[in-house]
Every structure is written in structure tokens, then in C-alpha cells.
């Protein structure tokens, strides 16, 4: 069970600092006691959904493990959620209790729900110190029980409520801690939101290993986040490519001077531009830089360790042990280098969506149909091409946006580009490009067209160009093509 991560570490390292957040810290014994104390209040006769709406904090971690200890299902809500998405999530999950604080109470009061829930302000909760025993709870339950509900990011469609069992999470966390060799000596700086799979996974790995997590609410004060790596002699730091780009652009020397103690950096959420990967590798020396491929439905399925002059720089690596991946088209399983939809199977794959909201058979006969398009090379490395839904069909010719975006994005004047198919009477679809130019750079439509000539088939060259100051992205930095 997921709470065994905390229970075992509390037994083995009771006085060790588990979490540091701003000016407070908590050791494993106290963290476990507080989680158990909360669990006693949350415990119901029948498991129900308890929603958790808190930003990164020690309270978040107490609440997370408290909900799981109580035998309930933890629905983790991103703090940046809009009112309408919050309404949708709560209508679907129908929680009995919402654990939050006064800041979000106002947000919740704007939501009209038919069903009643109890609101519990965790900052006002009266923890009964050192008085709760873990034997009060059934810690040997069935690990196939649902433990978590996380909504998938949804860049092209409505977010789906992904259910994850204790076993799913345990399996992923065990595999990742083994692969990254995370131990009780590790100190991880976590500024990623804990309400997302990426950040929550980092927390679970460090708690399972008996290490220490340095929590930050966000990355607004980037110098402070970077300085904490040095101050606490952190051994790992995970972040999105957007944050690493900010670090390279604005805080490179501070970062370089702060990472002596670091073993590895980890990135995910959106593709790493090659230039950024190389810039990071140049300052890392012998420290490692990893990326991985995973979805909320199948977390951390592959891992890739970047190397200098990496010939596989655009790969997301190889599947981890126990994870099976195949590439499939409508009719057959693909050979190496042949593109198709990525299917994943393994003990970490979600058993399904809540109330089966998906009208697509995405979880079918044990294989998760990811909707991602990719291929394996001859050495077994996985490469991502794009989303199935983003595929552009020009008069029957299938075009992946990434192919066009990579070419246009390599122009020195271009900062970012996204393309999508728009309806065309004759061809069905044609390509429209949304371009963000670098500062003070001027580009005309014909400059881009001429640049693409010879590099792309003519039908793939965009016919319509729109110039924007920035591209619409979700909170993980993924481009929202549907908003273009």
C-alpha cells in the first residue's frame, strides 16, 4: 500500500527530517503521527473520495498520507484549476470531504454542487500528537484497491479522471527508486506542483526511500529554489523544460555554482529542445540528466539518460523492467522505425477511468492505447512524434505537426512554432502555422516557405501563417493546439 512508504520510513528513520518547507520541517515520526491522527478523523465505514486542494506544503503531505491511511480514495486537485474544471471534477468524483485551507474555501464557495460535502481546513485541524497507532488501520488491505484519482492534463480533449490503484503507484515508485538508485541519503528539491503526477511521484520516491524533500510552493522565486539546492546539499532536482530554460537564460552561473552535491536532474512534461539539453549537459559534468515518458495513466514508463553528443537526444529512452510497449497501427504491430500509436502494458497501468467517461477504448485488453504516436529505432529506443489527434490529413497524406514544427523551429529567427490542420474544401485539411519570432526579428510568410522548400514535401509547407507573441500552453508547458 502507498502509505507503507511513510510507515516503513517512520519505523526505520523516525528522527530523520522528512520534509522542509519554508521555515518549518518535520521528521518521519511526526509526519506519520500527524497522517495517522488525520486518518482517524477521515475514516468512514465505507471508502469514499476525499478531495485534496492544497498547494505544496507539509500540510499537503500529511493530508495525502492521512487520506490513504484512512482507506479513502485521494482525489488530488491542481491548485491552478479553473472554476468550471473544478465543478466538473467535483461532480464526477463526488467527494464526501474536501481537505483544503481558507484560500481555496472561497473558490469552493463559488461552485454550485448538488451533493453536499464536508469542508476540512487542514490548517485548523487539531492533531493529537503521538497518540495514534498504525494498528488502528487496516494496513494490509488489498493493493488492487483504488488509491488515487488524478485528472489527465488533456491538451486536446476534456481531462479524464484517471484511477490509480495502490499497486500501480507502488510499482512505479519501486521501479523508479531502483532505476535512479534513490536512497535515504538523497535530498530532493521539489518545486513541481505535488498535485500533478510528476511532482507527486518525486515525493513518493523520496518518502519511500527515507530521504528528505525540500519543498517549494512554486518557482516564482527561482534564485531561492536554486540556492536551496546548495544550502541543503541536495542530490536531485526535477523540473519542466520551461523551468530549465529559465535557469539557463537567467540564472546559469548561480545554478552552476549550486549543484556540486547534485547526482541527477530529471525533466519531463514537454519535449526538451536539443539546445537546452546540450546547454544543461555542458554545465553538469559528471552529473546525470534524465527524461522519461509517461502518462497519468501509465506513469514513468521509459527512462532516458542523456549523454554528451547523444545520438539518441530526441529519444525518451527504453521501457523500464516490467513495462511492455508496442507500436501499433490499425492493422498490425509495427517493425522498428515504423510509426504508429504507442500501446503500454504493465502493473503500473491504470485500471480505468472513473465512470468510464472516455468514449474511446483507450484502456483495452490490458493495453493502454496512449493516443501518442511514436516509433522504436533499431536499438530499441522510443521516439515520440506527436498526438494521434494532432495528425493532419492533407488530401489523404498523413502529416505529423512535429515534423513541420522541427523544421520551422530551426530557423534562427523563430522562437516557437506550432502547426495544425484547418479545413480546406479541396484537400480536406491544409497546414496553418502559428509563429513566435525571437525578439526584434522580422519574418515574412515567404521567408518561412522558402526555408521549408526542399526540407519538407510541398504539401506539408504551411499555407497560412499567424504571428503571435506567445503560444497558448497548459500549466505543464504543453502547447494547447485546441486553443490556437
Amino acid at each position: 500500500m502507498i502509505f507503507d512508504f511513510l510507515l516503513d520510513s517512520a519505523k526505520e528513520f523516525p528522527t530523520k527530517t522528512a520534509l522542509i518547507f519554508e521555515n518549518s520541517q518535520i521528521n518521519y515520526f511526526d509526519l506519520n503521527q500527524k497522517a495517522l491522527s488525520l486518518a482517524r478523523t477521515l475514516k468512514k465505514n465505507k471508502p469514499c473520495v476525499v478531495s485534496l486542494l492544497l498547494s505544496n506544503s507539509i500540510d499537503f503531505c500529511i493530508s495525502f498520507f492521512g487520506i490513504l491511511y484512512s482507506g479513502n480514495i485521494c482525489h488530488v486537485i491542481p491548485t491552478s484549476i479553473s472554476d468550471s474544471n473544478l465543478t466538473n471534477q467535483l461532480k464526477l468524483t463526488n467527494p464526501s470531504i474536501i481537505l483544503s485551507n481558507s484560500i481555496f474555501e472561497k473558490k469552493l464557495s463559488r461552485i454550485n454542487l448538488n451533493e453536499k460535502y464536508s469542508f476540512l481546513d487542514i490548517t485548523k485541524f487539531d492533531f493529537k500528537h503521538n497518540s495514534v497507532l498504525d494498528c488502528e488501520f487496516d494496513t494490509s488491505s488489498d493493493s488492487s484497491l483504488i488509491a488515487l484519482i488524478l485528472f489527465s492534463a488533456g491538451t486536446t480533449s476534456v481531462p479524464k479522471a484517471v484511477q490509480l490503484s495502490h499497486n500501480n503507484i507502488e510499482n512505479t515508485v519501486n521501479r523508479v527508486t531502483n532505476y535512479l538508485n534513490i536512497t535515504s541519503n538523497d535530498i530532493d528539491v521539489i518545486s513541481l506542483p505535488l498535485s500533478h503526477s510528476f511532482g507527486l511521484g518525486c515525493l513518493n520516491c523520496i518518502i519511500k526511500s527515507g530521504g528528505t524533500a525540500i519543498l517549494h510552493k512554486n518557482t516564482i522565486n527561482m534564485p531561492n529554489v536554486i540556492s536551496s539546492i546548495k544550502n541543503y546539499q541536495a542530490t536531485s532536482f526535477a523540473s519542466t523544460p520551461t523551468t530549465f530554460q529559465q535557469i539557463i537564460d537567467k540564472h546559469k552561473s548561480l545554478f552552476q555554482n549550486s549543484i556540486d552535491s547534485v547526482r541527477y536532474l530529471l525533466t519531463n512534461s514537454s519535449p526538451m529542445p536539443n539546445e537546452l539539453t546540450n546547454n544543461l549537459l555542458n554545465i553538469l559534468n559528471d552529473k546525470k540528466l534524465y527524461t522519461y515518458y509517461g502518462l497519468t495513466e501509465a506513469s514513468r514508463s521509459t527512462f532516458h539518460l542523456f549523454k554528451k553528443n547523444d545520438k539518441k537526444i530526441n529519444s525518451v529512452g527504453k521501457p523500464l523492467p516490467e513495462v511492455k510497449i508496442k507500436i501499433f497501427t490499425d492493422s498490425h504491430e509495427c517493425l522498428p522505425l515504423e510509426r504508429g500509436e504507442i500501446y503500454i502494458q504493465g502493473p503500473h497501468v491504470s485500471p480505468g477511468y472513473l465512470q468510464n467517461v472516455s468514449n474511446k477504448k483507450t484502456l483495452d485488453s490490458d493495453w493502454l492505447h496512449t493516443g501518442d504516436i511514436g516509433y522504436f529505432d533499431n536499438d530499441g529506443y522510443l521516439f515520440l512524434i506527436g498526438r494521434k489527434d494532432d495528425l493532419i490529413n492533407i488530401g489523404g497524406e498523413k502529416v505529423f505537426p512535429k515534423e513541420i514544427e522541427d523544421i520551422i523551429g530551426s530557423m534562427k529567427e523563430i522562437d516557437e512554432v506550432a502547426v495544425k490542420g484547418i479545413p480546406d474544401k479541396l484537400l480536406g485539411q491544409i497546414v496553418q502555422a502559428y509563429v513566435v519570432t525571437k525578439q526584434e526579428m522580422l519574418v515574412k510568410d515567404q521567408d518561412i516557405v522558402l526555408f521549408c522548400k526542399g526540407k519538407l514535401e510541398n504539401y506539408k509547407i504551411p499555407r497560412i501563417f499567424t504571428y503571435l507573441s506567445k503560444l497558448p500552453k497548459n500549466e505543464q508547458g504543453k502547447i494547447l493546439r485546441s486553443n490556437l
Partner: protein
Amino acid sequence: MLLLIVIKMTNEDKIKQIFIKIFPEIVDDFDLNREQEDYENWDSFAHVNLVSEIEDQFNVELETDEIISISSAKSALELIKKKNNDI
């Protein structure tokens, strides 16, 4: 006869507009003094958008220290005032 009425927006109006664009939930109770931690959605992503809007609307470029110093609409307004005086 064509009558042109030009309403000049003050810096405070502009800041208010930017904040409401980034944090729509405050439209009915915008408060210049409300601090970052009292906003529901003021995370790293919102901060990047906020800074980018301020830079675009006021045609300024903000340094790291200045970016970090924005913790309320009031602090953003004071920063713009300072930037304008510097010019």
C-alpha cells in the same frame, strides 16, 4: 461632426486589467493590496503570464529582482512607477 472621446487609462487601470485577465476570479473584489498568497491561482505559471503581460502592456523589460518583487497589484504598480522614473 465626428466626436472623438479618448479615455486615457491610468497605470492603475492597466494593472487592474492585467490582474483580472490573469486571475479572473478577482473581478468582483479586486484589491490593490491583496498579497500573492491570498490568490487562489498565483503559481509559477500565472507569474510568468503576469510578467509577460506587464512587459507587453508597459513596454518594459523586467530584471530577475523586479520579477520576484511582484507580490501584489500594488507592488506591480510601484514597480512600473519606478521604471518610468528611471527612464
